[in-house]
């Protein structure tokens, strides 16, 4: 509730409207906000990971059910994880994704997003919102799986060029958990994020 309130204050939208907003409308508005933020913010454009994380936390995460997303990628083992482990898994997974996409954000500057007509029934609580990123070159397919929650529609999986994010991590996470357990996976993700930080710092020097 506190987050929902914080979000609506951020966006200076009435609470009621945020809760009733249709999923495709939400994606359209969110995409436009993200694009205009990228255009305005030089640090985000240059892929500054810390800035991108702040931006993602304030703007995108309130519209994502990230615990569902992480749990879905982890699978059955999620239920065996302690709340502390679950929190660490979410944090490291989020950092991994942010690091991965941070570099791509700058490319979004002169792109537009076309939200395709929503094919859903009135009472649906889970929908797929299909969009495409238009700019130079071929259009990039970008789809979202969304669920209706008490705090409005939330994203729980996304698809880039036909590839679903959660599905792509499922096998890798399962491999790691079966070899080294949940703590092993957390350690691998943390190490990956730390090394990634080193690499991106090294790249900036060039």
């Amino acid at each position, binding site marked *: 509730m506190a987050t929902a309130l914080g979000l609506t204050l951020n966006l200076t939208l009435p609470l009621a409207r945020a809760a009733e907003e249709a999923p495709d409308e939400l994606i359209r508005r969110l995409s436009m906000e993200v694009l205009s933020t990228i255009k305005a913010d030089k640090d985000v454009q240059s892929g500054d990971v810390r800035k991108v994380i702040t931006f993602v936390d304030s703007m995108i995460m309130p519209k994502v059910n*990230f*615990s569902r997303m992480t749990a879905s990628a982890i699978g059955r083992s999620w239920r065996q994880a302690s*709340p502390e482990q679950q929190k660490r898994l979410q944090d490291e997974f989020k950092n991994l994704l942010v690091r991965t996409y941070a570099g791509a954000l700058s490319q979004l500057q002169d792109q537009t997003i076309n939200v395709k007509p929503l094919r859903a029934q009135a009472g649906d609580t889970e929908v797929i919102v299909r969009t495409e990123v238009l700019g130079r070159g071929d259009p990039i397919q970008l789809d979202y799986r969304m669920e209706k929650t008490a705090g409005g529609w939330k994203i729980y999986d996304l698809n880039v060029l036909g590839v679903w994010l959660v599905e*792509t991590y499922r096998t890798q996470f399962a491999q*790691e958990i079966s070899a080294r357990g949940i703590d092993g996976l957390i350690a691998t993700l943390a190490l990956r994020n730390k090394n990634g930080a080193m690499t991106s710092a090294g790249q900036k020097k060039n």
Partner: protein
Amino acid sequence: MTLFSKAIAAAWFRGSLAGLVLLVLQGCATAPNTNPRDPWESFNRQVHGFNEGLDEAFVKPVAIAYQDVTPDLLRTGVSNFFGNLSDVWSLVNNVLQLKPKESVETFARVGVNTTIGLAGLFDVATDFNLEKYNEDFGQTLGRWGVPTGPYLVLPLMGPSTLRDTAALPVNWRGNLIGGVDDSVVRYSLTALRVVDLRAGLLRTSRMIDSAALDKYSFTRDAYLQRRRSLIGLNIFDSNSPPEERFDLPEPGNQNAPGGTSKPPQP
């Protein structure tokens, strides 16, 4: 037509030959927890390692140098030129898949780009809102119901499936560069095409480097999904059965440990 059917026959022959060779390999590859889509995993991992080594040592450095040395305009021209040639093959496959709108648009693309676009150097068609519909023979087989078969990593060429591998010889026939008589020109064009493709993937491969815990299975799972989606098969649609929600307590076990219904907020 005879040429075409011959090519298909050759493709199937080579495809089944590859299958036979790999069947022999299967003995050593089968482990108790084998991924059903990737029964030849241990063989594939070796080829993947070989390809990665080759890429790091040779192809990637050349692609980076190419990107650093040549002006943007020239590189775009090169990509457009090869893109136009591949549009010709996409046209054939769009027709084979009986896609009228896509066939007409692709035909118009090739026409416009070959003439106004100066032999394909400029992609004028995209500016005319003629969309690009990439289709290859593997997709055509898929469209007509040929299953993908097991995942297969090919030396030099990378991720594939048994079906896509079987389709390769046909794709090579359809590749207009392969029809160039002068072998020096043919090899030079092929080399340029490889460098052009690799340069176009530099950003993607950097992303995979940062995103993947295990590059092999990441690439495999992404590739298989991408190919499925290209022939119009999405893993999720409105008819998909509901997935088990691991973030919610197990049904009938409300107090399951760790089963938080509310996400811990940072």
